[in-house]
Structure formats: C-alpha cells, structure tokens
C-alpha cells in the first residue's frame, strides 16, 4: 500500500461513556488520486471516521496512516498534508474572505507572498473576487460555502477531507464546487468526501464505500458496485445495501 493516501488498520474507537464501540477492527484504504466517497445512513459513523482520520478524535485501537505517516504519533506535523472542509461554516464571519484566508493561510504554514497569491487565485476561481473585502456575515449561504472550501484548500493539501461541502447551496454553487474539486483532483489532490447528495456523489466520486453500523459493507468503484448489485444508480444501491428503515430514531 505504498501509494495509499489513507490507510486504516484494525481501527477501534468508542466515545467515552458509550457502551458499544463505534468501530471495531475497521480496515479501509484510499489510494492517492482517488475521488473517494464515504456514504451511509445517519449515525452510521461517517463523521466519526472522518474525525478520526483528521486527528480530531483520538482512537483507542489500530492505526491510521496519512500519506505513510501515523497520525497518532505526528498529529501536528502531518496536518500540513491534508485539508479539511467541515460541514459547519468554520471561519470568522466578522471578517472578509481575504482576511479569513490570510489568517488560516498563516496557520496552515504559508508565508505572506504565498497567502497573497493563493488568496487572489482562490477568490477568482470561486467567484468571490468582487466581495473579497466584504464581511462574510453579509454573504449568501452559497458564498459562505465557497469561503469554507477556499480556506480548506489554501495550502494545496495532498488529501482533502470534505464533510458535506455543498449542503444547503443552489445548483450553480454546487456545480461550481464540484467542478473545482474535480480540477483539484486532476492536479493530484486525493478527495475524501461524505454527503447525502447522492446524485452529486455519482458525478464526483470514482470510488465509493458504504458504511453502516460502524462497518464497511461495500467498497469498490461505483461502476463495479452497480454491476455487482444490479442497480442503475447510487440511491438504489444505497437502499439495497442499508435497507429502508429510519436510522436516526
């Protein structure tokens, strides 16, 4: 697995005070350059797994390697390798997009010139150049999502974790974000993506894993999974493998 972007082995994780573990001996490998989609019903463990991969949660058993580095041992030093776009709008709404990028760029380890260059480029590509100095709190939901994405990629990470990056945005913004992510992937960035937008996922992802009850129940290219399970779309495959019962009761 020398070209693995993320390699998870025998992962065991349990929240404090919880009786049953979220994951027990979970294995998962994401190759470099993949556009990997992780899907599952509510409460299946998608966000928990992503938080373990980004070092936000400390796991009790097993190992997670990111670009060959064990994250449990070198958390801060390998944080430069990946970017994270959380589901929440995780930035300062009192600041402008340029001010946010300036701050988060510095925290990502960029110097002043690199920050300036990347800020100009990202604001231009994501259609925010005209509002670069306006406070983000005055923006629409779609514009805020684009700021959220820009901050996650300012340091050109090798692996980009995206937790529902397009939730609550219109078709145009979704289209722009998906296209931008494909461009990033062409330049070599591995994408690890979760969403409930299955049609968007079909468009973006080339490798898909389904997780349910803390276990990976399917993991292959989307086309192969559709053939194997005789489905014509990701939504049918999802229902076929996870059932129709509500999971968030």
């Amino acid at each position: 697995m020398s070209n693995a972007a993320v390699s998870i082995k025998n992962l065991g994780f349990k929240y404090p005070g919880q009786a049953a573990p979220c994951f027990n001996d979970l294995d998962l490998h994401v190759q470099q350059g993949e556009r990997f989609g992780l899907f599952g019903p509510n409460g299946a463990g998608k966000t928990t797994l992503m938080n373990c991969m980004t070092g936000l949660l400390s796991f009790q058993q097993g190992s997670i390697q990111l670009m060959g580095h064990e994250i449990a041992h070198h958390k801060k030093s390998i944080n430069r390798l990946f970017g994270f776009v959380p589901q929440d709008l995780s930035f300062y709404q009192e600041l402008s997009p340029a001010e946010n990028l300036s701050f988060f760029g510095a925290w990502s380890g960029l110097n002043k010139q690199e920050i300036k260059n990347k800020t100009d480029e990202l604001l231009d590509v994501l259609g925010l150049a005209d509002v670069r100095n306006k406070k983000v709190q005055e923006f629409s939901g779609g514009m805020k999502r684009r700021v959220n994405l820009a901050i996650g990629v300012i340091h050109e990470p090798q692996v980009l974790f995206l937790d529902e990056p397009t939730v609550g945005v219109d078709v145009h913004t979704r289209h722009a974000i998906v296209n931008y992510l494909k461009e990033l992937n062409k330049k070599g960035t591995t994408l690890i993506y979760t969403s409930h937008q299955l049609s968007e996922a079909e468009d973006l992802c080339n490798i898909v894993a389904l997780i349910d009850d803390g276990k990976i129940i399917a993991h292959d290219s989307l086309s192969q999974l559709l053939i194997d399970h005789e489905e014509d779309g990701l939504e049918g495959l999802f229902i076929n493998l996870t059932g129709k019962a509500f999971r968030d009761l």
Partner: protein
Amino acid sequence: MFKLWSTILKDVRILSRDRLGLVFMFAMPIVLAIVITAVQNSTFEMLNTNKVPMLLCNKDTGEAGKQLEAAIGKAGMFDLKQLAPAESEKEISARMHAKDAVIAIIIPADFTAKIKEKAKHTAAKALHSFGLQTDSLKTDSSSIQPITLLYHPVLQESFRHSIQGALRSALQMVQSKEVLKSIYFSINEKELTDTLENELLNNQVAIREIPVSRDGSRNIPNATQHNVPAWTVFAMFFIVISLGGSVVREKLNGSFVRLKTLPTNYLVALLSKQLAYLFVTLVQAAVVFSIGIWLFPSMGLPKLDLPADIIGVFIVTLICGWCAVSFAIMVGVFSQTQEQSNGVGAVSIVLMAAIGGLLVPSFAMPSSFQFVMKLSPLHWCLEAYYGLFLEGGKLRDVILNILPLLGITFFIQLITLYGLKRKNLI
C-alpha cells in the same frame, strides 16, 4: 512569529467590529468613574462645603436655648431654618415630608431652667467634693426633657451619627458653660466675665489632620483618587464580556475544529488573545486616567493626580490587565454558551469587586471576609493602585500586592490549560 502576528491581527479586527463589546469595555468604565466620583464628591462636599438644611424649633425662651442655637450654628454643618415655638412635632414632621429639611431639632420649653438647675446641682456636688458648704446638693436633675432630633428615614446611619456628634458637642458647650458659671458664682459670689469664659471654654487644642503618604506629600485624597483606579480595575475585568464571548464563539462556530486540523498549536491563539486584549486593558486605563486628569476638572470634580512613579503605574496596570485577560479566557474556555459566559463572567466580576473592596472599603469588611477578600484578584489590583495613587508609593512599595496577583494569574492560566486539555482543545 508570522502566525502570531496574523492571529493578533485577526483578533484585533474582530474586536474592532464588536461594537457592543467596545461599549462595555470603554463607555461603561467612563460612565461609572464619572457617576460614582460625582456622587461621592457631592457627599463629601455636602459634609464639608454645603450645609445640611435643619429645622429648629426653640420652645425655650431662656438664655441656654439661645446659646444652644448659636452653638449649633457655629458647628458650620447646618443651614438653620427657625420655626415658630408654637409648631407641634406633627407639623414639623409634615414639613420634613415636604422635604423642607432632612433633620429637625426641638428644644423643650423649660430647657434653660432645667439646664441651670442641673448646673447648680453639678456645681454643688463639685464644691461639696472640694469640702465647701452648699445648700443645693439635694436638687433633683432627673426631670430634664431630652432635646428631640427628628430625621428623615433617607438619612444614612453614618451621616446621622455625625450630626448627633455635632449636636452633642453644642449641647456639651452649653452645659459646661452653665456649670462653670455656677461654680464661679458659688466661689466668688460674682458673675463670670466674658473674657474668662471664653478663655476657659473656647480655648480647645486644635486637631491637625495629616494623610499618611510614602512620598511625604500632604495632598488630601479625594473621591477622584479613590474612584478612578477602582473603576479602571473593574473595567479591565469586565472585558470578560467581550473576550469570554469571543472564546465561546470560536468554540461554537467550528473555527476551533478547523484550527485543530491545522499545523499550528492552539497556544498561539491563546497567546494572541492575551496580547491583543492586554493592549485593550492598557488603552482602557489610559482613557479612564485621561478623563480623570483632563475632563473631571471641567465637570467640577477633583483632578486625578498621577503618582510620581509612572513606570510603577504602567507595570501595575500591565499585571492587572494580564490577570483580567487570563480570567476572561478561563471563563470562555469553561462556558458552554455565550449567555453562560456573559452571565457567569459579569456576576463573578461584581462578586469579586464586592469582596475585593471596590464597593465597600476592605477595612470595613467583617473579619470573616478578610481571608475571602484576599482570594479576589481585584483586591490586590486595588491595593497596588491605592499604594501608588493614595499613599504616594513606588513600585517597590506595592510589590507585596503584585506578587499575590501574579500568583493568582498563574493559577488561572493553569486552570485554563487544564480546561483546554480536558476538552481536547490542545
């Protein structure tokens, strides 16, 4: 260093756009310093410059009643309004309810007669003890009616006591005069001359008041010297509303989560907040002190006199500010919501101000509170400032106030680090 500078810039930008926070940090201490100083100054002036309106109903037609009136007038505290002798206590009360005055005195009708009677009896006792014969020893003096002092319920007890003291002094003067006259007459069988009377009664030893200062100056402390440092300390600690809220917002809006995934330690953010807000506390102190120096005199309030040791003032301000900032961050780290941070922060500052001696002087605290008082960082801040502003001390004179303050600050920092570690934030 670039990361720290970027973080400071971010914090300053957010702070400068938090208008409510700025109002709390700057307008509130200015208003408090002006209002409290003005109120205390007017009380001070009422006792020393202005006179308290007093109704006086002298039902006595004799000499002692007039002497008492004159003695009360000489006390210099009262603006006397004479009432007709026929006015009843009920009518006088009605006048007081109408706010004609807050105090009234009724001198009973037989005041002179009874005072003379008592003076004769006292003189006879004295002469008897000297071995001289007298025939008035058996005079009964127990029937003297008391002077009636009516006061409005709004009058504070301490103020009432100072009025009573002035009245007793006037009454003592009248009684002593009568006793002296009586003894003199019994011995010499002639009246006491005015010159001798004045020599015996009005030749009191003067009292010289000297404020104890370290620098040997004889400046009399005033309401401004007391209030400006006190409310500056209060204002510094009130940045908990802005800073505590900022830490909570960062935790709740997801910025914290993003910061944790970046290759920079959150301690940089903590250091940045401390430096940015420490600068704010220094500006707060500069603003409030400037108002005391330049604005107060134009408002008729005493001017703030800065201590000679300006470097000492700067260092004390710096340490007080650091303690205030540390406390605010701790409140923010342990609060779950912004409302919780604001509520806990504001109430705890008022409580620490109360037990620390900002609201009630520390020497007036009950002994059971003396230990608790020392746990309040505001107490040590205030003591250090008073050492400089009131006692005219230098930095070395307040070092024993600064050391406990630094100890409390380090303790708060440790608790904050523990809280961040426990919540997996660092």
